[in-house]
């Protein structure tokens, strides 16, 4: 039996995680010296007061309404492009396609790590330099990195789907591509549909980050008001964004539930709800393309190619001088430490909150219902406020350093992770909790013995996945003393030092790939 070896591997993973966390804490300066800045409460209060008095003037609401349309269009087209690219890439990235030719599979997976390793905002900044003011900037900045992630996930779904039909087609002499298309894709289509809608939810948040770099939409309005710290206006934009996130979450969740637990009905009939959802999304994509006036010809016209050539010539060869490389090494360590702290905060927070945030079964009291709704609303706001805003707010009450940056990423990630964990709790077998309740256990006991054991594993798996995301998000929060590769990138971009930018980007991709490999290894051990 493999059990003991597996347990040993898990123990090692646990110890490794503990050591990593301690090392990151030491790096953040929490263990030595003061980190709090009580005098900053006044500034924090100004920020919080804005939440109670958002700017609701008709003029701003009009601006936000138009901006919301742009954000929706970016999100829908970005996610749509990602799904299209993912479907194409999945066949190339599936183990099934390559069989024993492992080298080809590794090469494809490695190639997918490049677009995935760069943050959407970085893609956006690079694309602005090539395409200028064009709606493609927002669509591609979401679609390209998301497409690479989607290709990988779709490939995994294909590999995990039952292979009976595929084997039969192959045995009957069908080519590999045809066999995958007709033997595997139908088997994996439910999972793919679920994931496509999950991507759409994420794309709404990414569309906002793109606004911060000037691609338009809600994020741009938020960034303009944030520059002058007009908190009432910032909060109006945050509420608009939260409403949008909520809408995407609710719709996406409904679709995913439907896929996971279809209602019984006659064989061969299509589920009208799912068909409706797909058609509605397709219609929304068409409207988005019309609204943004997207022209495919822009991608290959003379000016675009010209600018692309200029950029590539400026960046080649990438810088390789000693001082830059050693600074990259130092900053990479900061990036890893910051991302580890962020994930630790998010995991701890989501384990504590998941039980309350989960929708209570029917028949529970009004207090429990209200607490659940409040926590869910809180999590929604945590993820609706962009990480750079959290970073500034945390620096009001904490001394500058890696800690406020890590916390900013941590609470933002908590907003995402808390919701996913709460959904995992809703899916748990309700009987242990019911039994504990019947035996008269206190709420803490119920959480400790009924909820925590069941949710710890999915939460850890989600957390490992989000670790890679948090690592890339460090780009957004480093400028107030937090450090990380983002600081270096931002400084070199500001100076238009393209060779150094190329090197820093390559380092970022490698770091993301390393974290991804570690995460995949640990997930395999946990399974």
């Amino acid at each position, binding site marked *: 039996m493999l059990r003991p070896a597996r347990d040993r591997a898990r123990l090692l993973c646990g110890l490794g995680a503990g050591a990593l966390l301690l090392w990151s804490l030491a790096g953040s300066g929490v263990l030595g010296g003061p980190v709090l800045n009580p*005098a*900053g409460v006044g500034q924090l209060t100004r920020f919080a007061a804005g939440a109670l008095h958002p700017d609701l003037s008709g003029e701003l609401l009009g601006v936000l309404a138009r901006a919301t349309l742009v954000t929706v269009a970016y999100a829908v087209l970005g996610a749509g492009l990602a799904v299209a690219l993912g479907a194409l890439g999945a066949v190339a990235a599936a183990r099934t396609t390559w069989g024993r030719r492992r080298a080809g599979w590794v090469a494809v997976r490695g190639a997918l790590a490049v677009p995935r390793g760069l943050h959407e905002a970085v893609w956006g900044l690079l694309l602005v330099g090539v395409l200028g*003011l064009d709606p493609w900037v927002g669509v591609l900045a979401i679609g390209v990195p998301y497409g690479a992630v989607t290709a990988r996930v779709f490939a995994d779904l294909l590999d995990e789907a039952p292979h009976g039909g595929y084997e039969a087609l192959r045995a009957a002499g069908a080519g590999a591509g045809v066999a995958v298309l007709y033997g595997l894709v139908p088997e994996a289509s439910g999972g793919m549909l679920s994931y496509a809608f999950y991507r759409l939810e994420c794309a709404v948040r990414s569309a906002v980050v793109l606004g911060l770099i000037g691609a338009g939409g809600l994020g741009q309005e938020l960034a303009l008001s944030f520059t002058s710290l*007009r908190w009432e206006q910032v909060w109006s934009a945050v509420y608009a964004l939260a409403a949008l996130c909520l809408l995407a979450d609710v719709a996406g969740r409904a679709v995913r539930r439907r896929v*996971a637990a279809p209602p019984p009905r006659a064989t061969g009939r299509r589920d009208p709800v799912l068909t409706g959802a797909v058609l509605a999304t397709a219609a929304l994509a068409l409207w988005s393309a019309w609204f943004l006036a997207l022209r495919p010809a822009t991608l290959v016209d003379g000016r675009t190619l010209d600018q692309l050539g200029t950029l590539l010539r400026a960046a080649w060869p990438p810088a390789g001088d000693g001082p830059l490389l050693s600074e990259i090494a130092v900053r990479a360590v900061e990036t890893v430490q910051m991302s580890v702290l962020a994930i630790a905060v998010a995991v701890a927070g989501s384990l504590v909150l998941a039980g309350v945030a989960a929708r209570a079964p029917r028949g529970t009291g009004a207090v429990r219902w209200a607490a659940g709704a409040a926590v869910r609303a809180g999590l929604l706001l945590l993820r609706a406020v962009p990480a750079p805003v959290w970073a500034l707010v945390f620096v009001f009450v904490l001394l500058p350093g890696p800690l406020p940056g890590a916390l900013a990423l941590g609470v933002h990630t908590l907003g995402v992770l808390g919701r996913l964990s709460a959904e995992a709790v809703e899916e*748990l077998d309700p009987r242990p909790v019911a039994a504990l309740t019947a035996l008269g256990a206190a709420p803490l006991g119920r959480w400790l013995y009924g909820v925590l054991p069941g949710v710890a594993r999915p939460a850890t798996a989600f957390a490992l996945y989000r670790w890679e995301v948090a690592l890339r998000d460090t780009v957004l929060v480093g400028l107030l003393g937090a450090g990380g590769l983002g600081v270096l990138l931002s400084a070199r971009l500001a100076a238009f030092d393209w060779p150094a930018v190329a090197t820093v980007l390559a380092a970022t991709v490698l770091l993301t790939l390393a974290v991804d490999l570690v995460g995949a290894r640990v997930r395999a051990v946990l399974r």
Partner: protein
Amino acid sequence: MPRPRAARSGGPEHARTAIGRPAPRRPGPGPGRPTFGRRGFLTGSALAMAAALAGCGDRRSPVGPAPSGALSVGAIPDQDPEVLARLYGTVADAMSAALDLEVVYRPVTDYAAAVSLFRTGDLDLVWFGGLTGVQARLQTPGAVPVAQRDVDAAFHSVFVVDAATGLAPADDLRALAPLRFTYGSETSTSGRLMPAWFLRRAGVDPQGFPGGPGFSGSHDATLALVGSGSYQAGVLNEQVWAARTADGSVAPSVVEYARTPAYHDYHWLLGPAAVDRLGADLPDRVRSWLLGLPPGDEVLELFGAGSFLPTDASAYDQIEAIGRELGLIT
């Protein structure tokens, strides 16, 4: 142990593949598997997409470039960019009426993006800071500085400190070296470049403060951070400092410590593509409109200017030299 509900959970065994809730495997075709009439659906949506893209035709994108007959105007996000962005009609209408041209204002949220958009020709006339103006001119051969404000020929930055440091106003910048210090935006002339230069001249390493200097991102954020005490000192544009002190929004704990010597800062820069499209006399037309604005004009108010004055490239030679020395121009 059978756990009927948990089967839906997409628990850890699936978490590797999809962070959402993936479907469980279902052997073979059966009820509930979403099957679309694939060919019909794909063909239909491809056709519809093509129709939508073709139908875009002459529709102008809300985030796209201005039409080629129009002049597109922008400004770096410096002081109150949201006011400028949301009152853009004022600037665009006034300019449009005076120049007899269609004028489109495009708000920008990022200094580097403004420079890139000027290079790609998507922004024709941009209100740049000293440093961003030089960067834009170096990347866009043929660009010409058109005008500056009356205050820009002798602009200053203000070093502010938290009163808790006990520092009294003085000219010696060396007292700032042991403090937690923040600049504004990285390529801001008044919030970064010139203060860093004067710090270096005073013998203070501009990158050397405890924990490294912060980059707050904007003049207002610098004020808020020094006001919170997280940073003990910072530096910002004198105009923002004057405006915020006048309206009383500065925390009482923030006090002026020193003021830099004068330098050239903001200016309007006109790109070569606009001159090609709209006529060789465009620079003169824009310049004479800006210079002829009557005192108290709305556009002057928006830009915090008493009047606009002529300027030329040589006024920014010092900025360029300093930018190169500090590694902000490569």
